[in-house]
């Protein structure tokens, strides 16, 4: 389970945003403003208790705390981020010993009209005029905020994806323009995570208690697509395009009647046609997106078209769906068949999901993409419960780089994780088959949470 307890950093940004908002709406002496300022001062103190300074930077619409990317906080505090950028603040640093009056000055900077800040000579001059000695501000930079390696908390990135997916869906329902910048914030973070350690997000995607219309499906598909993309060696732009396509591939479902989305069992031809229209709806919704997002519209249209074009919609003039659509088709299918689909069908075990993909290579799925995915995830993907040749029960925790059928497993003893075995090294032991979690009374998702560092 994702830790929902907000960090001090998240709280600081939230309080800063709240204080700025209240300061704009009410006079300084209003109890709401006073309360917000007190809260903010308290959390600044808390953050500076064990460090000399705290530096926030903004780069590509994302907050960074030193070298740590804060995607979720950036999405949740978008108006604070905009307020900073409008006033030419791309970096702000609070130093130990900062008095409440200076915190107040910083808030007043964020609530002063941008033209007045410019008239005062910019944000730094504004603060200097008010002798805020414990605060430093700098203009936004076009280069990465730090030379040190950027760190992203995988859970934070995952949650950011979830936030973005929900927000984009709401925008699509309201027929508003989609805010692709927000998608980019999540994708930048997810790409950092995947490039740093491609398996760190896999455990987070192990939650299978959702259906295709859920934002979790969108985020999981996006992460799996990024994994395939990195395995192919795609560059950052290509990964962004791929991730965007995967994140938004089912956006057209917002225009399909909810009763149909919720329906279990068989569909009659009219219902099926309505449901299948989600691909065209998705393309229409994403039609006006500019830049790399144009591929997202293509993916939304083609992700059910099938490699041999036997799917839907019909694509006259195409020999094959676009390669991005072919990648998303594979990961989408895997995530769909292995998720619970909440009562509409029993999910396939991860390794059966892999067989599902393998069985469709060359017809439904692009054989090359499918093989890359199979190799990447392994024949027994992370989260698979397996029986070993020595009679032990194991949970797959890492795929192998060399042998698709010999991943790293952790033994399960009395419903808890035990010792780890790398089957690629320990060749005397092998997997004899996959197991149904219900049959052995084990919850792989919960165990994976334990396994996560």
């Amino acid at each position, binding site marked *: 389970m994702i830790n929902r307890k907000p960090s001090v950093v998240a709280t600081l940004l939230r309080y800063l945003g709240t204080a700025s908002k209240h300061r704009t709406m009410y006079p300084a002496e209003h109890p709401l403003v006073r309360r917000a300022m007190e809260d903010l001062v308290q959390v600044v103190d808390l953050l500076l208790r064990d460090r000399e300074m705290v530096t926030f930077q903004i780069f590509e619409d994302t907050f960074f705390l030193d070298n740590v990317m804060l995607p979720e906080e950036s999405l949740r505090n978008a108006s604070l981020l905009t307020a900073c950028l409008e006033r030419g603040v791309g970096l702000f640093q609070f130093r130990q010993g900062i008095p409440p009056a200076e915190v107040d000055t910083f808030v007043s900077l964020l609530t002063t009209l941008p033209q007045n800040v410019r008239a005062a000579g910019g944000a730094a001059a504004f603060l200097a005029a008010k002798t805020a000695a414990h605060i430093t501000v700098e203009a936004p930079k076009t280069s990465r905020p730090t030379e040190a390696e950027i760190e992203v908390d995988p859970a934070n990135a995952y949650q950011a994806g979830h936030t973005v997916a929900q927000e984009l869906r709401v925008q699509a329902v309201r027929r508003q323009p989609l805010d692709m910048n927000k998608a980019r914030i999540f994708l930048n973070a997810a790409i950092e995570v995947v490039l740093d350690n491609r398996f760190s997000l896999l455990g987070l995607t192990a939650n299978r208690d959702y259906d295709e219309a859920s934002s979790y499906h969108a985020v999981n598909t996006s992460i799996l697509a990024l994994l395939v993309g990195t395995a192919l060696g795609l560059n950052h732009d290509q990964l962004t395009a791929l991730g965007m396509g995967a994140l938004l591939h089912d956006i057209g479902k917002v225009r399909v009647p909810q009763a149909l989305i919720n329906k279990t069992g068989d569909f009659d031809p009219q219902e099926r046609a309505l449901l299948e229209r989600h691909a065209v709806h998705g393309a*229409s919704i994403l039609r006006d997106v500019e830049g790399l997002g144009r591929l997202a519209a293509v993916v939304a249209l083609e992700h059910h078209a099938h490699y041999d074009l036997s799917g839907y919609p019909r694509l006259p003039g195409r020999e094959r769906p676009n390669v991005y659509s072919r990648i998303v088709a594979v990961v989408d299918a895997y995530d769909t068949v292995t998720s619970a689909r909440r009562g509409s069908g029993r999910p396939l075990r991860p390794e059966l999901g892999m067989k599902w993909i393998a069985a469709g290579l060359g017809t439904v799925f692009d054989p090359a993409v499918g093989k890359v995915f199979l190799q990447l995830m392994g*024949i027994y993907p992370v989260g698979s419960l397996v029986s070993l040749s020595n009679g032990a029960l194991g949970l797959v925790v890492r795929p192998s780089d060399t042998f698709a059928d010999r991943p790293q497993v952790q033994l399960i003893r009395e419903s808890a994780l035990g010792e780890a075995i790398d089957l690629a090294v320990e060749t005397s032991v092998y997997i004899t088959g996959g197991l149904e979690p219900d049959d052995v009374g084990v919850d792989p998702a919960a165990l994976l949470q334990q396994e996560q560092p």
Partner: protein
Amino acid sequence: MTTAARFQAAAGVVRRLNAAVKSRRLYAQAHPLRTQTISALVAALLAYHERFGSFVLETHRHGLIVEGKPFEGGESVDNLALQLYAMGIWQIIVVPGLAEEEAAQLLEVISLDREAILAAGGFVPLLEQCGVTHMRVVELKPGEEDVAQITPEIFQQLLEGSLAAPDRAMLVGLLRSGPETAARLVGVIVERTRQAFPDEQGEALARRIYQALEALDRLIVDSPPGESQELLKTLAAAVSELDDPTGGGVSKTILAAAGHDLSARALLSAMTSEQIARMVIPCLETGDPPPQAGQLVQGLPFDPDKARETLALIAQRTGRSFDVPALLEELKIPPWIHNFPQDLTDFQISSEEVAVTADELRVLVAEAVTDEASLAREQTILLLHVVTTEEDAHEREEALQVLVRLAVQHLQQGDLELVSTVLHGMRELLRGQGGRAEAGRFAVRAFLTELPALVAVRDVWGWKDEHPLLRSLREIGGPAAAVLIQLLQQERDAARRQAITALLGRLGDTAVAALLPLLGQQNPEQVRPVVQALAQMRTVKAVQALRVVAQHSDVRVRRDAIDALRTTQLPQAQDTLLAFLHDPDAQVRQHCVGQLAPETARRMAGDLAAMLGDAALARAPQARIAICETLLRARAVDVIPALRRFASPFKLRSRDREVARYVRAAITGLQRAGGTAGAQRRAS
């Protein structure tokens, strides 16, 4: 039944409640007014219940809300609102069956001060203690996420799935707060549903309520993993204890939906057997046949044990027996739910099979380019597919506009194959019906409007038949020609006119049918370009089509046609020219005669010779001279005898004498030609 009637009835109840509260405060216990006002209140409620079901009154700091609208009842009612609000009452819900004693007890409780209420553990336990069972009070709990925040607007967004993040978090937070808050949440949702659909009752209202519960379930699906099951259980518990204004309709709807709807199935799966039984029993007691039991079994396809357990509970409590095995037959579990397809289980993947070659990787990566040209190309193909498959006219038209813009860009960049693909898509649209065809015409017109400025005349004439653009335009055929003609008639720029004419010319026979009706137009300026275009086609069909122009009233048009026919250099053009031979205008006739080929003139020599005596040419010596020259050029020796009639030098008018001179010269020339021909024949 109107919303206004419902509001009126509710307003009546509020006024009587206010009167009862006031008389409770003003008069002693034995005073008859106290009893009268309570009786009046209960009577008003009874009338309301009979027509509209449960009555709900909502308080706000500044007034009362009745049926979702602020109630303007004057200062007295505002005081009542403030009194209730100050005591922490948010909603008073009165369900049918309220007795006068209960109403009196409620007034007693309302009259208590806040401290006394808190000391008793709040309104809810206090009402229970007083035996008030037909009335429920929902309390405000300041500082917590409050159900009072669910405004009608938020409710509407919940139904649409367009809740903003904070509102989503607020609703999930309410579910997270525990069963009591969840129950209040569900109560509010029911109330908001009634307000949003005031004209619906019974089954229809139950379905609406279920849709709202479904929307709550969708929020749970998107809540953080690990938490969703707990939230679902909380919601399920609240639903099982829901105060149903439709008298069991919501339960029936859930049971009916359980066989085919994810949310209903999820709710049932999250309920305990006890909760399900509590929900099912009232449905069975209504006397309906028991499909509910079967629905229940279908709604729990993954948990037959729970279905069996629930049915046992229901049987035990109602004394009705169910044939459980028979009902379980209804379960119709698809075999793959419990037993995955054997072929999938048996399917083996070997490490070798998943090995990817470097070549395969290289091809994939090469395809994944994201340069501007590739993106524009992909976007174009996407839009093409959208316009050909989108059923929403507005979406289709917007997509078409962008598509045409992109097609023009591709044309400028020389990607003719792609442009051809787009035109192919437009042709598909044109073949459609109604709005689709209309959209196709719009697109073709938009594209062709831009086209003349982007192509050079020389290039157009140089296009080979397999040129992608030419091929596509010919495929579109008539509609393209119609648009080009229209453009030609409107265009003032000479270069563009030439380009349009050239395009029309290259369209060939496919455009003739579209052009033919245009030849009948009276306005010469509209017909002349059509004539030009037909001539440029240089096809038999186009040349034959020009025959119609001989009937046109404007001389210039007819002359143009003759000129145009000359340029085609097709043998069939001569036949068409003959249509102009008897033109009423002498100049046109002269022009026509001048264009006749020697063979044609020879064939028509008799007619031509006869025309020398035609009264219509009496004032046109030049036309007659032209006839003479043509006959001479054609060596039409057979007409010498006919010519002799016009060769006499004794003519009254000088123009006739001049013509006669030409006739004589023609005769001489023809005789000479005849002699030469005879000598040649003899020599051979």
